[in-house]
């Protein structure tokens, strides 16, 4: 007898780890690089300084984890937003493929961008 396993718990695990990583790390990063530096409240770090931080393997690993988890968090939540918010239950399989597929493609792009920084 074969049992059909649902991938839902795995998707939910990625969703919840991504939600936690996003909540812990994104506000401070977005505040600094999206608002504080652009408005000149503090001067942005020099290129040398930022390049030194970015090329550190620990930074790259943390950023890669954040990108992958945050993307799968988006995929899972946005999938249900489309189902429920826009009443698109009939298109459920297509939406799931587009959301998780988008997150997978985004993760590969993130890997390329971060490895190039090394």
């Amino acid at each position, binding site marked *: 007898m074969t049992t059909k396993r649902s991938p839902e718990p795995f998707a939910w695990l990625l969703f919840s780890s991504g939600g936690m990583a996003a909540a812990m790390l994104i*506000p401070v990063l977005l505040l600094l690089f*999206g608002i504080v*530096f652009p408005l000149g409240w503090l001067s942005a770090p020099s290129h040398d300084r930022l390049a030194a*931080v970015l090329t550190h393997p620990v930074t790259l690993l943390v950023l890669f984890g*954040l990108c992958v988890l945050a993307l799968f968090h988006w995929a899972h939540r946005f999938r249900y*937003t489309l189902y429920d918010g826009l009443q698109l239950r009939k298109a459920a399989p297509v939406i799931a493929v587009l959301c998780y597929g988008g997150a997978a493609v985004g993760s590969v*792009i993130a890997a390329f961008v971060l490895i190039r920084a090394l």
Partner: protein
Amino acid sequence: MTTADRRYHHPVSFTWWARKPSYLLFVLRELSSVFVAWFVVYLLLLVAAVSSGNESYQGFLEWSSHPLMIALNVIAFAFVLLHAVTWFGLAPKAIVLRLGSWRVPPNLILAAHYGAWLVISVAVAWVILR
């Protein structure tokens, strides 16, 4: 092979989320994920610019200080804060932690999340700004 779903479905209007403030907050919380994804794009553009050299980094800084970009990022920041606050708010309901027979009180779990948030934010800011 799939068969048509013949169970009864109560019709839901397209604008159900506008009926109550709690529904609206739910939809805004769900929409925060779009801004989480936007941040990943923004971060990767920053990393790509830094690794291409000082000139492209300066170009990124100039682009990021365009009024439209600042406006977008202020909105994104508000949504990301909504995500963080609602996420930590759910944590004590999702996590039941027992040490022996003692159940860690929900308020302590909530406080631990905010504490961790503060420590991580300060540490990240320190690494970037020092």
